[in-house]
């Protein structure tokens, strides 16, 4: 009886206590292992991100090499990189260190009339490309990716071509070959050169002329006259202004110095158009002409010919 009482009072752990202890142990162990695994995973991810950064940097330097070596190969599309004796683009993504897949996306870049990069509007600037580099890899069974983007410019071309500040800066009115025809009422042989890689638009032309008639030689402005009127203007085989048939404005023949709103002439990139003729209603031999072109962006360029000797 006494033994029974003692046994009851000083008995060992009950099954419930043992289970509770084991449960606690399991919970602590699980938390510890989970924490360790997370620590190891975080270390692996951190190391992978360092590698990804290096792989991206190498990729952009390789693109810089390609851009400087052969800009024309940098066309819109998706590529990988191929390292032979030089860096080159390849159709498929490349795999670095057996586990980092590197993809390059080359995209055209548009610029607005202020030369600012714009999404969608404006015109494609062939001297600028946007390259987006994406690295994809797997860490601890998880698929991860990182992207970075950079603009590249074709520095091998004349910097003026990269992004001219105005349209007028891209237009040359070449009067080296300008002549008066046999009637002496028509100027021919002027050439309009768009030297840039973007289109330019001529909106208006101002034709002014002076003839030395009142003094020998002419010294002062009052020694000159401006006889006759402008009758019509033809560029690249099309009338862009005509005094009598309603093309352009104003209508009617126009005196020297009048700004004529011609039908807009768009000269494509790196293209030359002939200014076929400027016709007048009088003989203008001995006159010196000044031609001012006002462009689509309101910028202006001006050129003056020598006097056309009689």
């Amino acid at each position, binding site marked *: 009886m006494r033994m029974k009482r003692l046994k009851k009072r000083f008995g060992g752990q009950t099954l419930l206590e043992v289970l509770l202890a084991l449960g606690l142990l399991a919970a602590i162990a699980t938390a510890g292992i989970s924490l360790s695994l997370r620590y190891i995973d975080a270390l692996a991810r951190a190391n992978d991100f360092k590698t990804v950064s290096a792989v991206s*940097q190498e990729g952009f330097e390789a693109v810089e090499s390609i851009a400087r*070596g*052969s800009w024309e190969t940098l066309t819109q599309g998706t590529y990988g990189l191929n390292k032979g004796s*030089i860096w080159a683009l390849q159709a498929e993504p490349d795999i670095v260190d057996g586990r980092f897949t590197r993809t390059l996306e080359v995209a055209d870049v548009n610029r607005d009339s202020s030369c600012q990069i714009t999404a969608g509007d404006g015109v494609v600037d062939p001297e600028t490309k946007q390259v987006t580099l994406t690295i994809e890899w797997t860490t601890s069974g998880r698929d991860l990716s990182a992207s970075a983007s950079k603009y590249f410019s074709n520095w091998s071309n004349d910097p003026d071509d990269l992004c001219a500040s105005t349209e007028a800066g891209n237009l040359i009115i070449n009067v080296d070959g300008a002549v008066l025809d046999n009637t002496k009422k028509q100027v021919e042989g002027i050439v309009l050169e768009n030297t840039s890689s973007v289109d330019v638009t001529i909106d208006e032309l101002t034709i002014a002329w002076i003839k030395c008639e009142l003094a020998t030689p002419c010294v002062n402005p009052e020694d000159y006259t401006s006889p006759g009127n402008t009758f019509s203007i033809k560029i690249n085989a099309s009338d862009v202004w005509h005094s009598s048939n309603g093309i352009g404005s104003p209508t009617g023949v126009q005196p020297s110095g009048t700004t004529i709103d011609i039908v807009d002439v768009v000269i494509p990139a790196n293209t030359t158009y002939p200014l076929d003729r400027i016709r007048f209603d009088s003989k203008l031999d001995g006159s010196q002409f000044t031609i001012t072109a006002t462009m689509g962006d309101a910028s202006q360029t001006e050129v003056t010919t020598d006097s056309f000797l009689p």
Partner: protein
Amino acid sequence: MKQRHAQKKGFTLVETIEYIGILAILMIPLTALVWTFLGDQVQQSRRSEVTDGGTFALATISETTRSAASISANTVYDTHPGSLEVDDDGTTVVFDTYERTVTQGSQDITIRTLRMTEGASPAVDLTSDDVTVDNFTITDLSPTGATTIEITLQLSSANPSNNKTYYAQNSWTTTITLRR
């Protein structure tokens, strides 16, 4: 008396052995974990030394070379130890390696150090006493119209006792294109 003794009885031998056993079961993995953690800390520190050293050295080489006017014909390509010589606006900058002896603990060990020499100025070490350069190779990847090189750099921790805990190694391959 007997009754009182029985009432105030401490742990039985079996209970004590049980507790020691449980403690041992808990302590063994815990000690191992702490030991591994401490080891990891040392290894991580060595790894950082190697990684930071390599990153700094490559950043310095890349920045100088990118803005350089040209790469000199004195550059030693395709072999370790290589040497890179660039012309930086009239000043010659040389990146190469040299061997030197350093003391770690009580041991003298020979390590290879990456250095930069700018003009007539004294050379500046780019890697620390705790790491050695295993590989410094320059490869010419220049296309027509541009100058491009590739640098392969491998560093490891100076580890005279070949202790696994103190071992760390990292390698980098980077491309540099001159901007002028």
